[in-house]
């Protein structure tokens, strides 16, 4: 078929559409949804008993804020990258808070080694962290990808990874509110590990949501 004929057919099929909400609004909508879902879980599980004490420590508070900032920046970056004409540099937005978050987790591990002794003594299992991030993070990631499914023909993979990062970071921030973990290495291992598992799952299954041939639907 000639391209001119294709144009004729496309304009003959034209149906009115409503221009999509701006990416900032989409990110905000999803953040509100995520905050609501995580808030309900925190209410259901109850705040950890030492929350006041924990949030009084500048290091802990900084770490918590960094994880929230990572989530917000990643969600905004995903919404921006889902639009064809927005510059790819939006993808860099979540890197500073992510670096800050990971650095504070690493720093916490070092401080714990000094305070509590070798890391082996601090290791334990916390399947709860993993389960929480997966059970809540997976639907949140799916919701964001569904909201941004128009990214499929444009930049599917970066949007997918940023979406999973946004969910994982916010889930980790939520976990911090009610889940009691003593040592930073445990937080790094279980929160970070859960985030990685979520990213892997998104990379495996997210393609179905985003990657479809152009013109297929």
């Amino acid at each position, binding site marked *: 078929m000639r*391209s001119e004929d294709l*144009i*004729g057919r*496309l304009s003959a099929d*034209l149906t009115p559409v409503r*221009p*999509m909400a701006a990416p900032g609004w989409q990110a905000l909508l999803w953040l509100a949804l995520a905050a609501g879902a995580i808030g309900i879980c925190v209410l259901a599980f109850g705040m950890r008993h030492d929350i006041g004490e924990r949030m009084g420590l500048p290091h802990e508070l900084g770490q918590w804020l960094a994880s929230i900032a990572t989530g917000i920046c990643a969600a905004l970056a995903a919404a921006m990258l889902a639009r064809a*004409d927005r510059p790819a540099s939006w993808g860099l937005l979540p890197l500073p808070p992510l670096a800050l978050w990971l650095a504070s987790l690493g720093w916490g591990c070092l401080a714990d080694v000094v305070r509590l002794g070798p890391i082996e003594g601090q290791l334990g299992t916390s399947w709860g962290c993993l389960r929480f991030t997966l059970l809540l993070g997976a639907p949140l990631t799916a919701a964001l990808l569904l909201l941004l499914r128009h990214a499929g023909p444009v930049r599917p993979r970066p949007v997918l990874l940023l979406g999973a990062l946004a969910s994982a970071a916010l889930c980790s921030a939520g976990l911090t509110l009610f889940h009691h973990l003593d040592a930073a290495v445990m937080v790094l291992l279980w929160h970070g590990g859960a985030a990685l598992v979520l990213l892997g799952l998104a990379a495996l299954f997210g393609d179905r949501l985003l990657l479809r041939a152009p*013109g297929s639907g």
Partner: protein
Amino acid sequence: MSDGEWEAWMAAAQAGDARAYDRLLRAALPLLRGIARRRIRDPAEAEDAVQDALLTIHRLRETYDPTRPLKPWLIAITERRAIDRLRRTSRRAGRESAIDDFGETLPDPLANQGEAKVAAAELRSAVAALPEAQRTALGLAKLQDLPLAEASARSGMSVGALKVATHRAVRALRKRLGVEE
């Protein structure tokens, strides 16, 4: 093009104005072609990339923000489709090699009979895929060129059955080898 004209057409297209949409896509076509041709050397492949881009533009038309310039949006989509197509072709090219490049490489005339050999091999495999009766009929009546009566005596098939089987065999071969009736 005057400032804002394409944007106005696209906004009208979002509202369902087919004529504005048609005019916009036709006006933008040289731009899309330019992008695709700059990336893809083969003109047919480049044109396919342009059509991929048109389909994507159509599918994503609700994601265009009418307050922003349209050109960067069109360019980004077309670049993406051209790169996708280029990747697909280079993946395919990794598995295949163009035989045209090797057609006449050897001085010995007998060495350049590759195509005839390939055709013969295709014909042999097509004959081998025929049902037994059709293969026998074809072999006796056409390849060995025996009179029908003798072919009938050798194969044990009646003359009528031989005629039908030969006809069917030839038709099946034509179809399989892609010869137009």
